[in-house]
């Protein structure tokens, strides 16, 4: 973890209390965000997002598979996050496993919504090719290249960018297959369907340090946190998921206050992110 002296700890805590953080930001200011799309040519869609020294890559791969017997009209989405030991020595071996699992679960919960599929960022029924027989399995992989706090928000943003970069190949189903036979399909190499990402939420993590909370915490600030609440919010301002980290308890009224603050922050974040994604996509097409 981050090793800080008592003086440094006081400096960080005192700065946050006075609304001036060590990198000159205010409590509710985020670091500048950089988005690059199409960074991995092997994947159907990919993006790299940088926020300060935090650097993450998300890739989306689509494979044809069979739908679950219980949900024949839905495709499948698997979210997996990998914390590379190149980011921090503590991620080596099994060290990153716990963090990876926590991030994957949080992202899965944000993207897939409730069990009935309402509130999902990704519309699972759009992934079905032939009901009950063929569907697209989306494998979303996140990779933490460099870690300086606020990983969940960065990964959320990267996945959103990667999904808007994703082209799902058009599939032509050969007619004539009947009964239990698996129909033959022809996957097009040229025609791609764009993925609808307007419903994909962004994640805003509010980290509580002392009596105040901050957005986009660096790892130094995170080491001083008592608890953190990650809220995913979509464009309509609806909450799509919420998880809490850190041991300390919170008063219910503070949580509600955090939710309303997160909403305001998310509006800006969605707009910035969308314009960055659009710029990145345009830049990619030119080159």
């Amino acid at each position, binding site marked *: 973890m981050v090793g800080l002296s008592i003086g440094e700890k006081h400096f960080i805590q005192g700065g946050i209390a006075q609304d001036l953080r060590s990198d000159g930001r205010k409590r509710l200011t985020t670091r500048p965000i950089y988005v690059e799309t199409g960074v991995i040519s092997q994947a159907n869609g990919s993006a790299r997002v940088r926020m300060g020294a935090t650097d993450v890559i998300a890739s989306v791969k689509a494979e044809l598979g069979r739908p679950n*017997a219980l949900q024949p009209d839905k495709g499948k989405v698997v979210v997996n996050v990998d914390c590379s030991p190149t980011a921090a020595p503590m991620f080596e071996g099994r060290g990153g496993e*716990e963090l990876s699992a926590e991030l994957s679960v949080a992202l899965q919960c944000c993207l897939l919504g409730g*069990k009935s599929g309402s*509130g999902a960022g990704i519309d699972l029924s759009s992934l079905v090719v032939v009901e009950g027989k063929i569907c697209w399995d989306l494998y979303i992989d996140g990779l933490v290249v460099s870690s300086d706090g606020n990983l969940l928000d960065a990964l959320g943003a990267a996945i959103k960018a990667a999904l808007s970069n994703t082209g799902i190949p058009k599939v032509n189903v050969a007619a004539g297959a009947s009964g239990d036979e698996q129909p033959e399909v022809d996957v097009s190499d040229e025609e791609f369907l764009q993925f609808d990402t307007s419903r994909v939420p962004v994640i805003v993590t509010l980290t509580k340090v002392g009596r105040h909370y901050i957005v986009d915490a660096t790892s130094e600030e995170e080491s001083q946190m008592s608890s953190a609440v990650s809220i995913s919010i979509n464009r309509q301002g609806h909450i*799509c998921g919420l*998880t809490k980290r850190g041991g300390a*308890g*919170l*008063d219910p009224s503070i949580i*509600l206050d955090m939710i309303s603050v997160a909403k305001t922050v998310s509006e800006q974040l969605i707009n910035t992110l969308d314009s960055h994604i659009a710029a990145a996509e345009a830049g990619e097409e030119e080159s």
Partner: protein
Amino acid sequence: MAGKGGATPSTYSPSPTTQKTKSLSFGNDEVLRPDDREWHQCRPAFFQIGVVAAAAGSAYADFGSTKVIVSVFGPRESKKAMMYSDIGRLNCNVSYTNFATPVRGQAYDLGSDHKEFSSMLHKALEGATILETFPKTTVDVFALVLESGGSDLPVVISCASLALADAGIMMYDLVTSVSVSCLGKNLVLDPTLEEESYQDGSLILTCMPSRDEVTQLTITGEWSTPKINEGMKICTDACSKFSQIMKSCLKGLDSALEEEDSNVD
């Protein structure tokens, strides 16, 4: 529809899809829930402590058909490989029996739910336990879901805090947990497995009622802010009622063990 034959399992299994016709009734306000409860009513709760002789502390809880047993071992010396820590560690593990689910072993087939539960249980308890009181040592919390009847995780959390208390581990307060499901326009307190299978969203709230502090909150699905408000209110009310039952269970008052009327309204 002839093509659908390949997708249905060849053997009978009471899967949620076979019961889906019932979900239609949830849109209607007058219809009660499958077990005749009101929307904001919990299942009758039962707690018992000291059920495992070998453990330092243990508790059994049943909420309707959800049955859970939690044993606490320790504090014992942390493993040598672990780094020195001047506060204690909690080691939490949630597992399911093979017969816990309608289809045998289903809990393990449907992804690694129990692994996620273990970390959620840990997060829910660590804020309430005074870890400073057992430095360099580890306390093991093992939870076993005997029967999964919905709201498994909240029951596990409440039961685990009772087991910790039974083991004499210092805590700030008992931890109680309740979930609400969002079914259409309605918020349903303490959902059953059947209700959970077609919920639009869920909210699990874990709190320390006497301190009015939320130690863990997880929301899935799409929620508006007023709905979150309402959901949290329902949960905190139910939590404080559960803590009364749990306290009387610890004191050994049998009379208050059974709770029939936990209607929040």
